């Protein structure tokens, strides 16, 4: 974005300033979505969001302190767009794709207003290797070549809406703005393409066809992988009051989820949390391929004290970058912490526009905007001659005021998501993390069951049913037990209560700060649960022989089982199988004692 403020520019004049909302008159040409540059010398970035009686209503992406009435505004005549191309990975952006590292070189430790820097490094050299030849006919979505970006093969794609014949093609070292290839279009004109494409953030990038998600996205967190799975291309909401563990869930997904690319959006949250991520990431390896985690990550950090308009844009910026990677046939996971802060930004801006509020003060178009965002997730066949699948999975945290799930953001979000990981303040206070409430949470991604059983580990569906039954029965029994005392329940019911306690502390709880526990591979998740189920079933069998419940509580194998999540790393699965054997033997000898007695 270069500002001219000269005779060739389309200039308007500021006639009103109200916080980050301006009124500007006098543009020769204007349309909603146009980017503008405000105030010579200040260079505040803004966007036209409405036009009323020829007056443009402009929302600013930066503070308007010190801006003068009657200042000049230049209309760039193009919408807020993302720069897409090599160099996105490992970069940390603000909500409108300004690279924060570069900004720190320009303005130091604090973000001054009006500083700009291109999103993609203009000087870095990339080794472009073409995969098409002169004369080849290519259309939108086709790959013409690639560069190696960190560990990824970054495909250069023919932009949507373009088709033509390869006229020239370059290869070897180049910077992003160099010409990579030219096309002879249908009207015989020649068009030049660099390694960069641009895409307006408010429009979804096109794809060929949508499919029902059916493959699970492995999260590495047991309670999600077993009880509330999400599919690749699915959408999840993580609601919870403050301190219930939303951010820790998001950080864990960023670290351990089985995706090719992660887009992490810190939307109106804490600076120190971003520092935590930036601090820990460089030392962490992707459990799948042992490559640095940072290499698959794009971060957006628009913390709560950064401008609200940029916060509102941040989730659309993020999803646009996610779509770009999806179009290369990748599985992308987009994490948004927190979507409530996004909605509040929307509310704040709407208030400045003096729009009619609806419930909770939110504008009437809240639901539409939310769906604009969530509907961009999905499993799709991407554009291009060859059949290629790509997906975007969205996990958005929701921060309901007072932890009350009946508020507008939570209820509206529920309409668009198929999995709901409800975090519970009571569980969090009792230090049961992740504080996922097993009664309020759900996942409708039933299609993943087949994939789990066929491709990952058999028995997933069965184990899941058993666990669900134990947990829900225990919840019913608890209230009875409170009235009449646990010891007055029949032994099989006492057992259920006990097993559910053990399951919670030994399986559902997962400590993110413990090296062995923080990541649970699908194998560990499954082998562990099978042991718990084995414990339950063997006990149940012995109860029928008259073995009292307290005997099970004293078993050596149980003590080990309760600690197994902490004692065994996902790499030491063999120890878990040994435990299985031990358990079987202990139960056998217990059985023998009682058979002898009777």
């Amino acid at each position: 974005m270069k500002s001219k403020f000269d005779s060739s520019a389309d200039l308007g004049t500021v006639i009103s300033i109200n916080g980050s909302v301006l009124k500007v008159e006098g543009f020769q040409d204007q349309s909603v979505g146009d980017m503008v540059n405000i105030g010579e010398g200040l260079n505040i970035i803004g966007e036209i969001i409405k036009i009323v009686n020829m007056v443009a209503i402009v929302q600013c992406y930066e503070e308007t302190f010190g801006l003068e009435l009657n200042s000049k505004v230049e209309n760039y005549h193009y919408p807020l767009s993302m720069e897409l191309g090599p160099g996105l990975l490992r970069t940390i952006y603000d909500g409108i794709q300004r690279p924060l590292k570069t900004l720190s070189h320009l303005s130091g430790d604090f973000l001054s207003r009006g500083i700009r820097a291109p999103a993609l490094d203009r000087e870095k050299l990339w080794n472009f290797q073409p995969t098409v030849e002169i004369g080849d006919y290519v259309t939108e979505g086709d790959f013409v070549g690639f560069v190696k970006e960190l560990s990824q093969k970054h495909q250069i794609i023919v932009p949507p809406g373009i088709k033509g014949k390869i006229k020239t093609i370059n290869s070897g070292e180049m910077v992003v703005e160099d010409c990579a290839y030219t096309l002879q279009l249908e009207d015989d004109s020649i068009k030049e393409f660099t390694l960069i494409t641009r895409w307006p953030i408010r429009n979804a990038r096109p794809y060929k066809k949508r499919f029902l998600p059916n493959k699970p996205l492995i999260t590495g967190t047991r309670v999600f992988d077993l009880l509330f799975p999400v599919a690749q291309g699915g959408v999840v909401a993580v609601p919870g009051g403050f301190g219930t563990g939303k951010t820790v869930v998001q950080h864990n997904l960023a670290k351990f989820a089985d995706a090719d690319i992660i887009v992490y959006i810190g939307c109106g949250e804490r600076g120190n949390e971003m520092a935590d991520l930036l601090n820990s990431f460089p030392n962490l390896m992707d459990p799948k391929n042992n490559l640095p985690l940072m290499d698959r990550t794009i971060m957006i950090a628009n913390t709560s004290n950064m401008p609200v308009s940029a916060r509102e844009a941040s989730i659309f910026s993020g999803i646009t970058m996610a779509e770009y990677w999806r179009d290369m046939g990748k599985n992308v996971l987009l994490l948004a912490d927190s979507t409530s802060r996004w909605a509040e930004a929307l509310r704040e801006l709407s208030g400045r526009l003096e729009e009619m509020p609806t419930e909770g003060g939110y504008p009437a178009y809240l639901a539409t905007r939310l769906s604009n965002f969530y509907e961009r997730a999905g499993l799709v066949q991407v554009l291009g001659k060859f059949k290629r699948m790509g997906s975007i999975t969205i996990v958005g945290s929701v921060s309901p005021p007072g932890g009350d799930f009946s508020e507008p953001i939570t209820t509206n979000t529920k309409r668009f998501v198929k999995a709901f990981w409800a975090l519970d303040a009571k569980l969090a206070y009792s230090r049961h993390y992740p504080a996922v409430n097993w009664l309020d949470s759900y996942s409708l991604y039933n299609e993943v069951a087949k994939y789990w059983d066929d491709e990952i580990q058999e028995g997933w569906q069965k184990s899941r049913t058993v666990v669900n039954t134990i947990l829900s029965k225990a919840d019913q029994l608890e209230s009875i037990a409170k009235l009449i005392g646990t010891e007055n329940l029949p032994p099989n019911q006492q057992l259920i209560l006990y097993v559910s306690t053990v399951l919670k502390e030994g399986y559902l709880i997962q400590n993110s700060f413990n090296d062995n526990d923080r990541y649970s591979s699908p194998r560990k998740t499954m082998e562990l649960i099978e042991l718990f189920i084995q414990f339950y079933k063997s006990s149940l069998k012995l109860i029928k022989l008259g073995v009292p419940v307290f005997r099970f509580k004293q078993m050596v194998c149980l003590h080990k089982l309760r600690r197994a999540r902490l004692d065994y790393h996902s790499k030491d699965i063999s120890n878990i199988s040994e435990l299985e054997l031990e358990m079987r033997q202990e139960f056998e000898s217990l059985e023998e004692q009682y058979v002898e007695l009777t």
Partner: protein
Amino acid sequence: MAISYTKISSVMGPLLYMKPIPNHNIKNGSIVRIQTRDGDIRTGQVLTVSRELVVIQVVEGTFGMSLGTTKITFLDDIFRVGVSREMMGRRFNGLGEPIDGGDPILPEELLDINGEPMNPVCRAYPRDVIQTGISSFDTLMTLVRGQKLPIFSGQGLPHNKLVAQIVNNAKVLSKEPFVTIFCGIGLLAEQSLYFQKKFEEQGATRVISFINLASDPTIERLLIPKIALTTAEFLAYKQDMHVLVVLTDITNYAEALREISNVKGEIPARKGFPSYMYSDFANIYERAGRIKGKKGSITQIPVISMPNDDISHPIPDITGYITEGQIVLSRDYHQQNIFPPIYPLSSLSRLMKDSIGGDNTREDHADITSQLYACYAKALEARELESIIGKESLSDNDKDYLTFAEYFELYFINQGESERSFESSFNVAWRLLSIMKKSELIRVKKENIHKYYIENFDPETFTKEKAWKRHIRE
């Protein structure tokens, strides 16, 4: 050139409305000087401006301003505060002017009180602790330099006493310079005197106070935290100091925000508070932190008195969503005369996990924390059980828990006004844990049990020692 007006069109609460002169390029946020009929000089700030209307917020209020004779001069500048190292030990008002009778400050720099957002990539993750001298605080919710950790209190709870104690005792364990900025927002005159007296007892040379009294103009409540934090940023990032900023009471700040928003006719969100309260609070709280390559730090302890003790009220709720944990005071404890009444189960420091341990506090710290939590939580369950089935029917193990809880509350939480180092807090903690059987301490590493567990510990020791100490004093 400064342009003056004499024609006000409306006055509402602290707001003035005027029609701008054509071609006067009024600056958004600029400062205006207002001279009333009787020569009184006040300060205002441009809130919104358009060709038809400029809205000015008057800091000292609009009382007594006449439409015809008030003279309004636009100064071409925004709110700034003069800062200097000389401010140490001094007391200022909501505009940053000295109110302790001392000489005016010769500013080293004039800074925009709004500051600028810290670039997230320049933040250094907080890692070093501050010792408050309070066992429960230091052991269970350790305060980390660069953290924002609020105190959630209620009407009539002794948070002022607690704050005074923290201000007087807080220290960093290294030899680095440490200063406390005390920012009183909407304080009652008596409270202000109380703090002043408490700080003076300790010499008060390391405390800078900014005081806005309940009787001072409402708008000053909105300015004073910004002035305090601008001063903090100067000391932390330009003078390499560790700064602890105590803000009390944020509830008064929020009420001022609501009052002004209401006058402006804005559409309210919850309970009449403006919809931008989250962003507004964030602009205060996020000014805590550390910067890579800089020695200093800013740590914040905001105090919130929760209306009706309701933690889901917008003020504590929004605060909790921005800060890194919370210290919750308990009315139950207070009624049992436990001081400080910090309730451990709902309190949390989110940043302590990476900052405690061998290098900073002691190698067994994390174990102690998690074991004390676990034991106390279990003990409370045992208490509930006791109230249903009676003590006699409890197992011996449960009885141990009951004893633990009793002594934990009496000797660990209820430490009174004394000061304890990390070391002595941990030692008290180990005595408490030694009430339990070793096998119950599953959260503690074996080597720590071996090193610190006291065999055959008699809880009576606590009582005896206390009696003995009292005896000495008398």
